[in-house]
């Protein structure tokens, strides 16, 4: 396990270096941050003076090495727009995104597992057919459309749920959470439903087909032959073996969930990292962009490591292969 973790750390450092390099190369094509800082009418000389002060006129490598040096010390630069350290800006936005992803993941797990298993066990039932029909459409509907439709139905027409924002939040040890207030939870419903909508159909289908495949295997037939209780066959023997690919995909899909927070957060004015990222692109806040890529990159490396470890527990064969 120790060797595994050390190897992972080295890998992640390389990954982070690559990310920082790509991010840094891209930022030069995204526009001039000084343009957005000053009014449209400010003279070229004034802008040049500001660029000089920010070190934006230095050669690429000088800027890059300075950035990596600072990053190694934990300083990812100062956001041009927020006038605050980028890390601080990102961390202040992180709770909103993490809560959104967390609640969406819970919705996904709570809905897809029972539905997926049910439709695998009773593929010919009416409910299964309806679910499959909807999931085909669901895969094709883009998330912002889902979001807008949800807003119009539940926000504007029915007026049940708030249309934007996080609502009332409570600060617990620096973590702004909306999970502990009634208002905050109400605000969470529409965004998390929209976000989970991108994975619900896919996931139901995945679980269903995996489960159906497992049900055909020899050991399940043997379990039946042994005369085991049907719940035990379904839930212990079949379901547990369905999990392995599902967990792998989930690891990757969490990444996709994060990617889709960009759209979801923008539609709902959800003050998270995705929203912040899109705004940073619009404002060419390049310092914040690069820092965001670094933080999200780091998070992905972490998530994948955790998934690998979980994997090892579910399927010991992986652990052996990984330890050689």
């Amino acid at each position, binding site marked *: 396990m120790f060797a595994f973790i050390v190897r992972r750390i080295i890998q992640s450092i390389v990954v982070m270096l690559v990310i920082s390099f790509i991010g840094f190369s891209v930022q030069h094509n*995204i*526009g*001039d941050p000084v*343009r*957005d*800082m*000053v*009014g*449209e*009418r*400010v*003279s*070229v000389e*004034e802008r040049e*003076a*500001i660029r000089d*002060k*920010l070190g934006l006129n230095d050669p690429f490598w000088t800027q890059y090495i300075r950035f990596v040096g600072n990053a190694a010390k934990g300083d990812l630069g*100062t956001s*041009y*727009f*927020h*006038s*605050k350290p980028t890390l601080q800006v990102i961390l202040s936005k992180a709770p909103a995104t993490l809560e959104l992803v967390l609640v969406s993941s819970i919705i996904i797990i709570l809905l897809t597992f029972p539905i997926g298993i049910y439709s695998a066990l009773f593929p010919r039932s009416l409910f299964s057919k309806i679910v499959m029909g909807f999931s085909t459409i669901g895969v094709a509907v883009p998330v912002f459309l889902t979001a*807008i439709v949800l*807003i*119009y139905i539940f*926000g*504007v027409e029915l*007026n049940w749920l*708030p*249309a*934007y*924002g996080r609502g*009332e939040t409570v*600060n617990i040890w620096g973590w702004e959470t909306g999970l502990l207030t009634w208002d905050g939870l109400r605000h969470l419903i529409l965004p998390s439903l929209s976000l989970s909508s991108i994975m619900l159909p896919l996931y139901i289908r995945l679980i269903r087909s995996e489960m159906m495949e497992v049900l055909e295997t020899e050991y399940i037939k043997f379990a039946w032959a042994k005369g085991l209780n049907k719940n035990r066959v379904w839930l212990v023997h079949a379901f547990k073996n369905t999990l392995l690919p599902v967990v792998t995909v989930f690891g990757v899909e969490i990444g996709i969930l994060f990617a889709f927070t960009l759209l979801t957060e*923008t*539609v*709902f*004015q959800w*003050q998270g990292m995705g*929203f*912040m990222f899109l*705004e940073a*692109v*619009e*404002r*060419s806040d390049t310092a914040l962009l690069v820092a965001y890529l670094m933080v999200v990159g780091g998070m992905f490396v972490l998530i994948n490591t955790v998934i690998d470890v979980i994997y090892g527990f579910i399927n010991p064969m992986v652990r052996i292969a990984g330890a050689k």
Partner: protein
Amino acid sequence: MRKLIVLALTCALVLSFGATVGAKVLKLALDADPKTLDIQEQLSGGTLQFSHWVFDPLVRYRQDMSFEPRLAEKWERIDDLTVRFSLRKGVTFHSGNPFTAKDVKFTLDRFNNSPDFKGLFEPFAESVIVDDFTIDIKTKKPYPLMLNMMTYVFPMDSIYYTGTDDQGKPKDALLKVGYTYAKTALPSGTGAFRCIYREHGVKMLLSRYTDYWDKGSPGNVTEIILAPIKEEATRVAALLAGDVDFIMPVPPQDFARLKKDKKVELFTYTGGRIITVQMNQNRLEPLKDARVRQAIVYAVNNAGISKKIMKGTATVAGQMSPKGYYGYKESLVPRYDLSKAKKLMKEAGYAKGFEATMIAPNNRYVNDEKIAEAFVSMVSKIGIKINLKTMPKAQYWDEFDRQPADFQMIGWHSDTEDSGNFYEYLLMCPGKETGYGQYNSGNYCNPKVDELTLACQSETDLEKRAMMLQEIEQIIYDDAAYIPFHWQNHSYGVKKGVKAQAIINTLNFPYLGDLVVE
């Protein structure tokens, strides 16, 4: 810890809103919240709107564009270079400090440190305090736009913004990047509202200032909760759902919906921002010929664009200056006439047309990309094939300066609310040394226009000046120096009972201090 207390107080405040009898809370959703609390840091509509809520200018525009005395009660020109302002007595800042001439001078001097405002205040010389409530504001040359510029002067609390803060930095520091006191501390102005809480990009709370000097103001809003909602559809949905009471701007595609809904109302007001396309004569030979440029102007059905693309949220333009400006000339109307356009092309020897390139932004002006596309298809009728490239504003302005295309779109709002500003930036001969024609990517150059524009800058006889401005307007119209499209309208969506009509204006500075809510 301090943060926690502030937060607790805020929560208590928010909760108490509902409970207080007679409190009028206005929930306001903008496309973006003010970027900074330092009102002199950025010259933008957002910052100026905020300035009108939390601060007060020396004078401000009424709906008819005349000047309304605010912190300056009276003024008189005492010589060519000086105007003497008498200031209002008994005004206090939110901090409790009294307002005096010192604050005005402090504010004027501080403009010189602001990269954004410095250029605008370049004509001004050092002001002289006569007594506590009288100040002489001087210019370097005779200057006709004194009062226009005084609408930018929102006196800041000189006592509050002087000294050093807890980080040992001077409180009056003005920086574009990094921390300054004025950027982060809750501001102290003289305005109708105190800013009591701000979480950048998320929320701002404004509370009515009990000692506000303007007792005659009909305004009855006691609290404002300001939240940015960037996404257009969401902003409209929030209004329709009753989550907010006041939104701006309203996207054109939702005008019909707002008009139909009985719970809300839509207000629009003609703005001063003209949308134009410039034709680069240095890049493309045919554009040197005035007949070709005229042909293009004749080929553009800008009234159709205002109606079909802008859905009536724009006022079609035949000239630069909107109505109410001194340069506005009634006779200069839009000229859409396709057969005439074809004839002119033939006369110029380009009956077959030519190929050209164009760039336009896609998120800077309302429907900018669609307007550019419509333009391309309109001029294709006279044989001009344009290869259009659109890009986000973050990249656009650098491209604009490099002039990579023959046609470039630019919208312009005159900072001084005066016609001269259009000509100075968009139509005077571009020159690095002179600094004029800085955004004239058409490279139109007419010595007569230059001469008149410069003369207007120091002509204090306003009637004579108006004649000169109109003469310029006529010349550039005849020369077809640019292609005019329309002036963008400002739009506001409000809940029924919010009397927005009385407080909106051409400048897009809704005076929320005077807003009446039933």
